[in-house]
Protein backbone atom coordinates (compact mmCIF):
# COMPACT_ATOMS: atom_id res chain seq x y z
CA UNK A 1 0.00 0.00 0.00
CA UNK A 2 1.41 3.36 -1.02
CA UNK A 3 1.02 6.52 1.05
CA UNK A 4 1.82 9.92 -0.38
CA UNK A 5 4.47 10.29 2.31
CA UNK A 6 6.87 8.14 4.30
CA UNK A 7 5.50 7.17 7.73
CA UNK A 8 8.48 7.99 9.94
CA UNK A 9 8.66 7.97 13.76
CA UNK A 10 9.15 11.72 13.67
CA UNK A 11 5.86 12.22 11.81
CA UNK A 12 4.00 9.79 14.06
CA UNK A 13 5.30 11.64 17.12
CA UNK A 14 4.28 14.98 15.65
CA UNK A 15 0.78 13.65 14.86
CA UNK A 16 0.42 12.25 18.40
CA UNK A 17 1.47 15.57 19.94
CA UNK A 18 -1.10 17.38 17.78
CA UNK A 19 -3.78 14.87 18.90
CA UNK A 20 -2.81 15.42 22.55
CA UNK A 21 -3.09 19.17 22.03
CA UNK A 22 -6.52 18.79 20.42
CA UNK A 23 -7.86 16.53 23.20
CA UNK A 24 -6.58 19.05 25.77
CA UNK A 25 -8.65 21.78 24.16
CA UNK A 26 -11.75 19.56 23.90
CA UNK A 27 -11.50 18.92 27.66
CA UNK A 28 -14.32 16.93 29.26
CA UNK A 29 -15.93 15.98 25.93
CA UNK A 30 -13.02 13.66 25.26
CA UNK A 31 -11.70 12.92 28.76
CA UNK A 32 -14.76 10.98 29.96
CA UNK A 33 -14.96 9.07 26.67
CA UNK A 34 -11.36 7.91 27.23
CA UNK A 35 -11.47 7.42 31.00
CA UNK A 36 -14.52 5.15 31.30
CA UNK A 37 -13.28 2.44 28.84
CA UNK A 38 -9.82 2.64 30.45
CA UNK A 39 -11.38 1.94 33.85
CA UNK A 40 -13.21 -1.06 32.33
CA UNK A 41 -9.93 -2.35 30.86
CA UNK A 42 -8.17 -2.11 34.22
CA UNK A 43 -11.12 -3.37 36.27
CA UNK A 44 -10.41 -7.15 36.19
CA UNK A 45 -6.98 -6.72 37.75
CA UNK A 46 -7.46 -3.46 39.63
CA UNK A 47 -10.36 -4.98 41.60
CA UNK A 48 -7.95 -7.47 43.13
CA UNK A 49 -5.32 -4.76 43.61
CA UNK A 50 -7.85 -2.46 45.33
CA UNK A 51 -9.02 -5.30 47.58
CA UNK A 52 -5.44 -6.01 48.65
CA UNK A 53 -4.69 -2.33 49.27
CA UNK A 54 -7.89 -1.84 51.30
CA UNK A 55 -7.19 -4.96 53.34
CA UNK A 56 -3.60 -3.84 53.95
CA UNK A 57 -4.68 -0.36 55.03
CA UNK A 58 -7.42 -1.77 57.26
CA UNK A 59 -4.93 -4.07 58.91
CA UNK A 60 -2.54 -1.15 59.43
CA UNK A 61 -5.16 1.29 60.70
CA UNK A 62 -7.49 -0.74 62.86
CA UNK A 63 -6.75 -2.44 66.07
CA UNK A 64 -9.30 -5.21 66.18
CA UNK A 65 -11.29 -5.49 69.37
CA UNK A 66 -11.19 -8.93 70.96
CA UNK A 67 -14.19 -11.10 70.18
CA UNK A 68 -16.85 -10.72 72.85
CA UNK A 69 -16.73 -13.47 75.45
CA UNK A 70 -19.60 -15.96 75.66
CA UNK A 71 -20.57 -14.66 79.11
CA UNK A 72 -20.61 -11.06 77.87
CA UNK A 73 -22.68 -12.02 74.82
CA UNK A 74 -25.13 -13.92 77.06
CA UNK A 75 -25.47 -10.89 79.35
CA UNK A 76 -26.12 -8.64 76.35
CA UNK A 77 -28.69 -11.11 75.02
CA UNK A 78 -30.50 -11.17 78.37
CA UNK A 79 -30.51 -7.38 78.44
CA UNK A 80 -31.95 -7.15 74.94
CA UNK A 81 -34.59 -9.76 75.75
CA UNK A 82 -35.59 -7.81 78.85
CA UNK A 83 -35.93 -4.59 76.89
CA UNK A 84 -37.92 -6.31 74.17
CA UNK A 85 -40.34 -7.91 76.60
CA UNK A 86 -40.72 -4.62 78.43
CA UNK A 87 -41.44 -2.83 75.17
CA UNK A 88 -43.91 -5.54 74.15
CA UNK A 89 -45.67 -5.40 77.51
CA UNK A 90 -46.04 -1.65 77.14
CA UNK A 91 -47.33 -1.73 73.59
CA UNK A 92 -49.59 -4.78 74.02
CA UNK A 93 -50.81 -3.82 77.49
CA UNK A 94 -52.35 -0.52 76.62
CA UNK A 95 -54.38 -0.23 73.44
CA UNK A 96 -54.03 3.51 73.53
CA UNK A 97 -50.25 3.33 73.40
CA UNK A 98 -50.32 0.58 70.82
CA UNK A 99 -52.49 2.73 68.59
CA UNK A 100 -50.14 5.65 69.08
CA UNK A 101 -47.17 3.41 68.32
CA UNK A 102 -48.78 2.30 65.05
CA UNK A 103 -49.43 5.89 64.09
CA UNK A 104 -45.83 6.85 64.79
CA UNK A 105 -44.65 3.88 62.73
CA UNK A 106 -46.83 4.98 59.81
CA UNK A 107 -45.58 8.53 60.07
CA UNK A 108 -42.00 7.31 60.18
CA UNK A 109 -42.57 5.18 57.10
CA UNK A 110 -43.96 8.14 55.20
CA UNK A 111 -41.81 11.01 56.36
CA UNK A 112 -39.24 9.74 58.80
CA UNK A 113 -35.49 9.71 58.55
CA UNK A 114 -34.89 6.21 57.33
CA UNK A 115 -33.35 4.85 54.19
CA UNK A 116 -36.82 3.52 53.21
CA UNK A 117 -37.15 6.70 51.17
CA UNK A 118 -34.26 5.60 48.99
CA UNK A 119 -33.13 2.61 47.02
CA UNK A 120 -29.54 1.61 47.69
CA UNK A 121 -27.55 0.28 44.74
CA UNK A 122 -24.50 -1.65 45.99
CA UNK A 123 -21.29 -0.86 44.12
CA UNK A 124 -17.66 -1.83 44.49
CA UNK A 125 -14.75 0.60 44.32
CA UNK A 126 -12.27 -0.72 41.76
CA UNK A 127 -9.90 2.15 41.11
CA UNK A 128 -8.59 5.31 42.70
CA UNK A 129 -6.66 8.26 41.29
CA UNK A 130 -3.16 7.65 39.92
CA UNK A 131 -1.69 10.56 41.93
CA UNK A 132 -3.16 12.42 44.91
CA UNK A 133 -3.92 15.62 42.96
CA UNK A 134 -7.65 14.89 43.12
CA UNK A 135 -9.98 12.83 45.30
CA UNK A 136 -12.17 10.51 43.27
CA UNK A 137 -12.81 6.79 43.03
CA UNK A 138 -14.17 4.64 40.22
CA UNK A 139 -16.89 2.05 40.90
CA UNK A 140 -17.93 -0.93 38.80
CA UNK A 141 -21.51 0.23 38.25
CA UNK A 142 -22.71 2.46 35.44
CA UNK A 143 -25.75 3.78 33.61
CA UNK A 144 -26.86 0.24 32.71
CA UNK A 145 -27.31 -0.37 36.45
CA UNK A 146 -29.31 2.82 36.92
CA UNK A 147 -26.48 5.08 38.07
CA UNK A 148 -26.87 8.74 37.16
CA UNK A 149 -24.73 11.81 37.59
CA UNK A 150 -25.37 13.61 40.89
CA UNK A 151 -26.57 10.58 42.88
CA UNK A 152 -25.29 10.55 46.47
CA UNK A 153 -22.98 7.81 47.70
CA UNK A 154 -23.07 6.37 51.24
CA UNK A 155 -21.19 3.77 53.20
CA UNK A 156 -22.16 1.80 56.29
CA UNK A 157 -19.99 2.02 59.37
CA UNK A 158 -19.55 -1.07 61.44
CA UNK A 159 -18.84 -0.85 65.12
CA UNK A 160 -15.50 -2.58 65.45
CA UNK A 161 -15.56 -2.48 69.24
CA UNK A 162 -18.37 -5.01 69.35
CA UNK A 163 -17.16 -8.03 67.44
CA UNK A 164 -19.86 -10.68 67.84
CA UNK A 165 -19.15 -14.40 67.84
CA UNK A 166 -20.22 -16.19 64.64
CA UNK A 167 -23.82 -17.52 64.58
CA UNK A 168 -24.73 -15.33 67.54
CA UNK A 169 -28.40 -14.36 67.78
CA UNK A 170 -27.35 -10.73 68.39
CA UNK A 171 -26.35 -10.49 64.75
CA UNK A 172 -29.95 -10.93 63.69
CA UNK A 173 -31.09 -8.31 66.20
CA UNK A 174 -28.63 -5.52 65.42
CA UNK A 175 -27.97 -6.18 61.74
CA UNK A 176 -24.42 -6.79 60.65
CA UNK A 177 -22.11 -6.23 57.75
CA UNK A 178 -21.88 -9.43 55.66
CA UNK A 179 -18.26 -8.60 54.83
CA UNK A 180 -16.90 -8.19 58.35
CA UNK A 181 -19.59 -9.65 60.59
CA UNK A 182 -19.58 -6.47 62.72
CA UNK A 183 -22.80 -4.78 63.83
CA UNK A 184 -23.82 -1.82 61.65
CA UNK A 185 -23.34 1.42 63.57
CA UNK A 186 -24.75 3.85 61.03
CA UNK A 187 -24.61 5.24 57.50
CA UNK A 188 -22.24 8.00 56.41
CA UNK A 189 -21.93 10.22 53.37
CA UNK A 190 -19.05 9.35 51.02
CA UNK A 191 -19.59 11.72 48.09
CA UNK A 192 -21.58 11.91 44.90
CA UNK A 193 -21.46 10.52 41.37
CA UNK A 194 -19.41 12.89 39.23
CA UNK A 195 -19.85 11.11 35.92
CA UNK A 196 -21.30 7.80 34.82
CA UNK A 197 -20.27 5.62 31.90
CA UNK A 198 -22.09 2.49 30.77
CA UNK A 199 -20.35 0.13 33.19
CA UNK A 200 -18.31 2.37 35.48
CA UNK A 201 -18.93 5.61 37.35
CA UNK A 202 -16.62 8.10 39.00
CA UNK A 203 -17.33 9.16 42.58
CA UNK A 204 -16.28 12.57 43.86
CA UNK A 205 -15.34 12.09 47.50
CA UNK A 206 -16.39 14.54 50.23
CA UNK A 207 -12.76 15.60 50.63
CA UNK A 208 -12.40 16.72 47.00
CA UNK A 209 -12.15 20.48 46.52
CA UNK A 210 -15.03 20.32 44.06
CA UNK A 211 -17.35 18.84 46.69
CA UNK A 212 -19.75 21.29 48.34
CA UNK A 213 -22.92 20.59 50.31
CA UNK A 214 -25.27 22.26 52.80
CA UNK A 215 -25.21 20.57 56.20
CA UNK A 216 -26.60 20.78 59.73
CA UNK A 217 -24.11 21.29 62.52
CA UNK A 218 -25.19 19.65 65.78
CA UNK A 219 -23.52 20.92 68.95
CA UNK A 220 -22.77 18.26 71.53
CA UNK A 221 -24.12 18.91 75.03
CA UNK A 222 -21.57 17.98 77.65
CA UNK A 223 -22.79 18.60 81.25
CA UNK A 224 -19.19 18.46 82.46
CA UNK A 225 -18.16 21.25 80.12
CA UNK A 226 -21.10 23.67 79.63
CA UNK A 227 -21.15 25.79 76.50
CA UNK A 228 -21.95 29.50 76.57
CA UNK A 229 -23.74 30.86 73.52
CA UNK A 230 -24.91 34.33 72.64
CA UNK A 231 -28.63 34.59 71.85
CA UNK A 232 -30.73 37.56 70.78
CA UNK A 233 -33.39 38.53 73.30
CA UNK A 234 -35.64 41.57 73.66
CA UNK A 235 -32.90 43.07 75.83
CA UNK A 236 -30.25 42.55 73.13
CA UNK A 237 -27.56 39.90 72.80
CA UNK A 238 -27.38 37.80 75.97
CA UNK A 239 -24.97 35.09 76.93
CA UNK A 240 -26.49 31.84 78.25
CA UNK A 241 -25.61 28.21 78.73
CA UNK A 242 -26.67 25.95 75.88
CA UNK A 243 -29.17 23.29 76.97
CA UNK A 244 -30.75 20.34 75.21
CA UNK A 245 -33.99 22.30 74.70
CA UNK A 246 -32.49 25.25 72.84
CA UNK A 247 -29.77 23.38 70.98
CA UNK A 248 -30.89 24.28 67.49
CA UNK A 249 -29.08 22.89 64.46
CA UNK A 250 -26.81 25.38 62.70
CA UNK A 251 -26.92 25.39 58.89
CA UNK A 252 -23.46 25.53 57.31
CA UNK A 253 -21.91 25.09 53.88
CA UNK A 254 -19.29 22.35 53.72
CA UNK A 255 -16.63 21.77 51.10
CA UNK A 256 -13.69 19.41 50.71
CA UNK A 257 -10.21 20.71 51.53
CA UNK A 258 -8.56 18.68 48.75
CA UNK A 259 -6.66 16.53 51.23
CA UNK A 260 -8.21 14.38 53.94
CA UNK A 261 -10.86 16.63 55.45
CA UNK A 262 -13.62 19.17 54.91
CA UNK A 263 -14.00 22.82 55.92
CA UNK A 264 -17.08 24.87 56.65
CA UNK A 265 -17.80 28.37 55.43
CA UNK A 266 -17.77 31.12 58.05
CA UNK A 267 -19.99 30.46 61.09
CA UNK A 268 -20.91 33.19 63.62
CA UNK A 269 -18.69 32.96 66.69
CA UNK A 270 -21.81 33.31 68.87
CA UNK A 271 -22.74 29.67 68.14
CA UNK A 272 -19.60 28.60 70.05
CA UNK A 273 -18.70 25.68 67.79
CA UNK A 274 -16.30 23.18 69.36
CA UNK A 275 -14.28 20.17 68.35
CA UNK A 276 -16.44 17.07 68.64
CA UNK A 277 -19.61 18.62 67.15
CA UNK A 278 -21.29 16.58 64.44
CA UNK A 279 -22.25 17.47 60.86
CA UNK A 280 -25.28 15.90 59.19
CA UNK A 281 -26.82 16.06 55.74
CA UNK A 282 -29.85 18.32 55.45
CA UNK A 283 -32.21 15.39 54.92
CA UNK A 284 -34.73 17.37 52.87
CA UNK A 285 -32.77 17.27 49.64
CA UNK A 286 -34.35 15.49 46.67
CA UNK A 287 -31.07 13.68 46.02
CA UNK A 288 -30.70 12.43 49.60
CA UNK A 289 -33.95 12.67 51.58
CA UNK A 290 -32.44 11.26 54.78
CA UNK A 291 -30.19 12.67 57.47
CA UNK A 292 -26.75 11.04 57.44
CA UNK A 293 -23.56 11.71 59.29
CA UNK A 294 -20.90 13.61 57.29
CA UNK A 295 -18.17 14.13 59.85
CA UNK A 296 -16.98 15.55 63.12
CA UNK A 297 -15.44 18.95 63.85
CA UNK A 298 -11.77 18.56 64.70
CA UNK A 299 -10.56 22.17 64.94
CA UNK A 300 -12.15 25.59 64.99
CA UNK A 301 -10.12 28.56 63.71
CA UNK A 302 -10.88 32.27 63.62
CA UNK A 303 -11.86 33.72 60.26
CA UNK A 304 -9.13 35.93 58.83
CA UNK A 305 -11.63 38.31 57.23
CA UNK A 306 -13.97 38.80 60.18
CA UNK A 307 -13.05 38.16 63.85
CA UNK A 308 -16.73 37.55 64.71
CA UNK A 309 -16.79 34.43 62.58
CA UNK A 310 -15.02 31.07 62.76
CA UNK A 311 -14.22 28.27 60.32
CA UNK A 312 -14.47 24.62 61.38
CA UNK A 313 -12.25 21.86 60.06
CA UNK A 314 -14.08 18.56 59.80
CA UNK A 315 -12.87 14.96 59.67
CA UNK A 316 -15.08 12.79 57.44
CA UNK A 317 -17.00 10.02 59.19
CA UNK A 318 -16.44 7.63 56.27
CA UNK A 319 -13.17 5.73 56.06
CA UNK A 320 -12.31 7.16 52.66
CA UNK A 321 -8.87 5.61 52.34
CA UNK A 322 -10.28 2.11 52.67
CA UNK A 323 -13.48 2.34 50.65
CA UNK A 324 -14.50 -0.95 49.11
CA UNK A 325 -18.23 -1.76 49.11
CA UNK A 326 -20.40 1.34 49.00
CA UNK A 327 -24.02 2.19 48.19
CA UNK A 328 -25.31 4.63 45.60
CA UNK A 329 -28.58 6.25 46.64
CA UNK A 330 -31.48 6.41 44.23
CA UNK A 331 -34.02 8.74 45.79
CA UNK A 332 -37.65 7.61 45.80
CA UNK A 333 -38.99 10.91 47.05
CA UNK A 334 -41.11 11.57 43.96
CA UNK A 335 -43.04 8.36 44.70
CA UNK A 336 -44.01 9.41 48.24
CA UNK A 337 -47.46 10.90 48.93
CA UNK A 338 -47.44 14.71 48.97
CA UNK A 339 -46.98 16.34 52.36
CA UNK A 340 -50.13 17.60 54.10
CA UNK A 341 -48.20 20.21 55.98
CA UNK A 342 -46.92 20.18 59.53
CA UNK A 343 -43.75 18.54 60.68
Amino acid sequence: MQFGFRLSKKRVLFALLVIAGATSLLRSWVSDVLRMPAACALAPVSDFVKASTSAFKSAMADREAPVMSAAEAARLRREVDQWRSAAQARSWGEIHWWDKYRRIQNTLNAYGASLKRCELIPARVILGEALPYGRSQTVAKGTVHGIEKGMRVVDVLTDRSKALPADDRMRAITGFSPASGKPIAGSVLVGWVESAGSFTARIRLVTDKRFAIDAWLQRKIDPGNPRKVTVMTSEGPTEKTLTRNDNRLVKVNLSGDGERGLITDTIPKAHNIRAGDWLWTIGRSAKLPVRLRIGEVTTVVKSVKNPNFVIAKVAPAAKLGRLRDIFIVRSLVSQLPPSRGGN
Partner: protein
Amino acid sequence: MRWIPFVILIYVALLVQVVVAALPVRFGFTGDIAPDIPAILAVFFALSVRDLHDAMLAAWSLGLAMDIMLCGMGGIVTAVGPMPIAYALGSGIIYRVREAFFRDRALARAILTLVFCLTAHFLWVTIQTLLVLAWSAWWSAVAKAIGISIYTAAVAPLVCVVLQRCGGWFIATPARRSRRR
Protein backbone atom coordinates in the same frame (compact mmCIF):
# COMPACT_ATOMS: atom_id res chain seq x y z
CA MET B 1 11.76 -0.54 21.05
CA ARG B 2 9.71 -3.70 21.42
CA TRP B 3 6.26 -2.12 21.47
CA ILE B 4 4.06 -5.09 22.42
CA PRO B 5 5.94 -5.87 25.66
CA PHE B 6 6.01 -2.11 26.24
CA VAL B 7 2.18 -1.92 26.13
CA ILE B 8 2.02 -4.72 28.72
CA LEU B 9 4.55 -2.78 30.81
CA ILE B 10 2.29 0.31 30.71
CA TYR B 11 -0.64 -1.79 31.98
CA VAL B 12 1.43 -3.20 34.84
CA ALA B 13 2.91 0.23 35.63
CA LEU B 14 -0.58 1.73 35.91
CA LEU B 15 -1.67 -0.96 38.33
CA VAL B 16 1.44 -0.39 40.45
CA GLN B 17 0.77 3.35 40.26
CA VAL B 18 -2.79 2.90 41.54
CA VAL B 19 -1.45 0.89 44.49
CA VAL B 20 1.24 3.42 45.46
CA ALA B 21 -1.22 6.30 45.05
CA ALA B 22 -3.57 4.56 47.48
CA LEU B 23 -0.81 4.59 50.11
CA PRO B 24 0.22 8.25 50.10
CA VAL B 25 2.69 9.92 52.43
CA ARG B 26 1.73 13.24 54.06
CA PHE B 27 4.05 16.25 54.22
CA GLY B 28 3.31 19.65 55.68
CA PHE B 29 3.28 22.01 52.72
CA THR B 30 2.53 19.47 49.98
CA GLY B 31 -0.25 17.41 51.56
CA ASP B 32 -0.54 13.80 50.40
CA ILE B 33 2.10 12.71 47.88
CA ALA B 34 2.93 9.47 46.07
CA PRO B 35 5.69 8.54 43.60
CA ASP B 36 5.06 8.76 39.85
CA ILE B 37 6.13 5.29 38.61
CA PRO B 38 5.47 5.94 34.86
CA ALA B 39 7.80 8.97 35.12
CA ILE B 40 10.59 6.68 36.34
CA LEU B 41 9.91 4.41 33.34
CA ALA B 42 9.98 7.39 30.97
CA VAL B 43 13.37 8.48 32.34
CA PHE B 44 14.67 4.92 32.10
CA PHE B 45 13.70 4.72 28.43
CA ALA B 46 15.09 8.20 27.72
CA LEU B 47 18.43 7.02 29.14
CA SER B 48 18.41 3.59 27.53
CA VAL B 49 17.05 3.80 23.98
CA ARG B 50 19.17 4.74 21.00
CA ASP B 51 16.71 6.97 19.16
CA LEU B 52 15.25 10.26 20.44
CA HIS B 53 11.89 9.56 18.79
CA ASP B 54 11.62 6.17 20.49
CA ALA B 55 12.20 7.83 23.85
CA MET B 56 9.61 10.52 23.18
CA LEU B 57 7.04 8.04 21.82
CA ALA B 58 7.46 5.86 24.91
CA ALA B 59 7.10 8.91 27.16
CA TRP B 60 4.02 10.06 25.21
CA SER B 61 2.34 6.67 25.74
CA LEU B 62 3.17 6.63 29.45
CA GLY B 63 1.94 10.21 29.79
CA LEU B 64 -1.34 9.38 28.07
CA ALA B 65 -1.88 6.44 30.42
CA MET B 66 -1.24 8.69 33.42
CA ASP B 67 -3.49 11.45 32.12
CA ILE B 68 -6.36 9.00 31.70
CA MET B 69 -5.94 7.91 35.31
CA LEU B 70 -5.70 11.45 36.74
CA CYS B 71 -9.24 12.73 37.02
CA GLY B 72 -9.01 15.87 39.09
CA MET B 73 -6.64 18.54 40.31
CA GLY B 74 -7.39 21.06 43.05
CA GLY B 75 -11.08 21.29 42.36
CA ILE B 76 -11.10 21.05 38.57
CA VAL B 77 -11.86 18.12 36.25
CA THR B 78 -8.68 17.65 34.26
CA ALA B 79 -8.42 17.27 30.48
CA VAL B 80 -6.68 14.33 28.80
CA GLY B 81 -3.76 15.54 26.69
CA PRO B 82 -1.39 17.80 28.63
CA MET B 83 0.49 14.94 30.34
CA PRO B 84 1.56 13.19 27.08
CA ILE B 85 2.90 16.52 25.82
CA ALA B 86 4.67 17.22 29.13
CA TYR B 87 6.15 13.70 29.32
CA ALA B 88 7.35 13.79 25.70
CA LEU B 89 8.99 17.18 26.26
CA GLY B 90 10.59 16.02 29.52
CA SER B 91 11.87 12.88 27.82
CA GLY B 92 13.37 14.97 25.02
CA ILE B 93 15.22 17.10 27.59
CA ILE B 94 16.58 14.04 29.43
CA TYR B 95 17.69 12.48 26.13
CA ARG B 96 19.60 15.64 25.23
CA VAL B 97 21.40 15.99 28.56
CA ARG B 98 22.07 12.31 29.25
CA GLU B 99 25.61 12.40 27.86
CA ALA B 100 26.62 14.77 30.64
CA PHE B 101 25.86 12.15 33.32
CA PHE B 102 27.11 8.74 34.33
CA ARG B 103 23.77 7.13 33.55
CA ASP B 104 24.25 3.99 35.63
CA ARG B 105 24.85 5.90 38.85
CA ALA B 106 21.93 5.99 41.27
CA LEU B 107 22.47 9.68 42.02
CA ALA B 108 22.45 10.58 38.32
CA ARG B 109 19.18 8.70 37.84
CA ALA B 110 17.67 10.44 40.85
CA ILE B 111 18.70 13.90 39.60
CA LEU B 112 17.45 13.23 36.07
CA THR B 113 14.15 11.87 37.41
CA LEU B 114 13.78 15.00 39.54
CA VAL B 115 14.38 17.23 36.48
CA PHE B 116 11.93 15.18 34.41
CA CYS B 117 9.20 15.18 37.06
CA LEU B 118 9.55 18.87 37.82
CA THR B 119 9.32 19.70 34.10
CA ALA B 120 6.43 17.35 33.35
CA HIS B 121 4.32 18.05 36.45
CA PHE B 122 4.88 21.81 36.38
CA LEU B 123 3.79 21.87 32.73
CA TRP B 124 0.79 19.63 33.44
CA VAL B 125 -0.40 21.70 36.37
CA THR B 126 0.05 24.95 34.46
CA ILE B 127 -1.69 23.75 31.30
CA GLN B 128 -4.62 22.31 33.30
CA THR B 129 -4.92 25.61 35.16
CA LEU B 130 -4.77 27.61 31.93
CA LEU B 131 -7.50 25.48 30.36
CA VAL B 132 -10.02 26.41 33.08
CA LEU B 133 -8.40 29.61 34.41
CA ALA B 134 -8.56 28.40 38.03
CA TRP B 135 -5.45 30.10 39.39
CA SER B 136 -6.50 29.59 43.01
CA ALA B 137 -5.68 25.90 42.60
CA TRP B 138 -2.29 26.53 40.95
CA TRP B 139 -0.13 27.21 44.04
CA SER B 140 -1.27 24.19 46.01
CA ALA B 141 -0.96 21.97 42.90
CA VAL B 142 2.59 23.22 42.22
CA ALA B 143 3.55 22.52 45.85
CA LYS B 144 2.17 19.00 45.44
CA ALA B 145 4.05 18.61 42.13
CA ILE B 146 7.32 19.52 43.87
CA GLY B 147 6.60 16.99 46.62
CA ILE B 148 5.73 14.27 44.10
CA SER B 149 8.90 15.02 42.10
CA ILE B 150 11.17 14.73 45.16
CA TYR B 151 9.47 11.52 46.28
CA THR B 152 9.73 10.04 42.77
CA ALA B 153 13.41 10.97 42.53
CA ALA B 154 14.08 9.26 45.85
CA VAL B 155 12.37 6.06 44.71
CA ALA B 156 13.79 6.07 41.14
CA PRO B 157 17.16 4.34 41.83
CA LEU B 158 15.35 1.39 43.46
CA VAL B 159 12.91 0.97 40.55
CA CYS B 160 15.76 1.30 38.07
CA VAL B 161 17.55 -1.68 39.64
CA VAL B 162 14.55 -3.84 38.63
CA LEU B 163 14.24 -2.20 35.21
CA GLN B 164 17.94 -2.68 34.50
CA ARG B 165 17.52 -6.44 34.81
CA CYS B 166 14.58 -6.71 32.41
CA GLY B 167 15.41 -3.78 30.10
CA GLY B 168 16.16 -6.18 27.24
CA TRP B 169 12.51 -7.22 27.09
CA PHE B 170 11.54 -3.74 25.95
CA ILE B 171 14.59 -2.27 24.23
CA ALA B 172 15.84 -4.02 21.08
CA THR B 173 18.99 -1.93 20.58
CA PRO B 174 20.24 -0.23 23.76
CA ALA B 175 22.05 3.08 23.58
CA ARG B 176 25.84 3.23 23.72
CA ARG B 177 27.94 5.95 25.23
CA SER B 178 28.71 8.59 22.60
CA ARG B 179 32.33 8.96 21.43
CA ARG B 180 31.97 12.68 20.91
CA ARG B 181 34.23 14.83 23.03
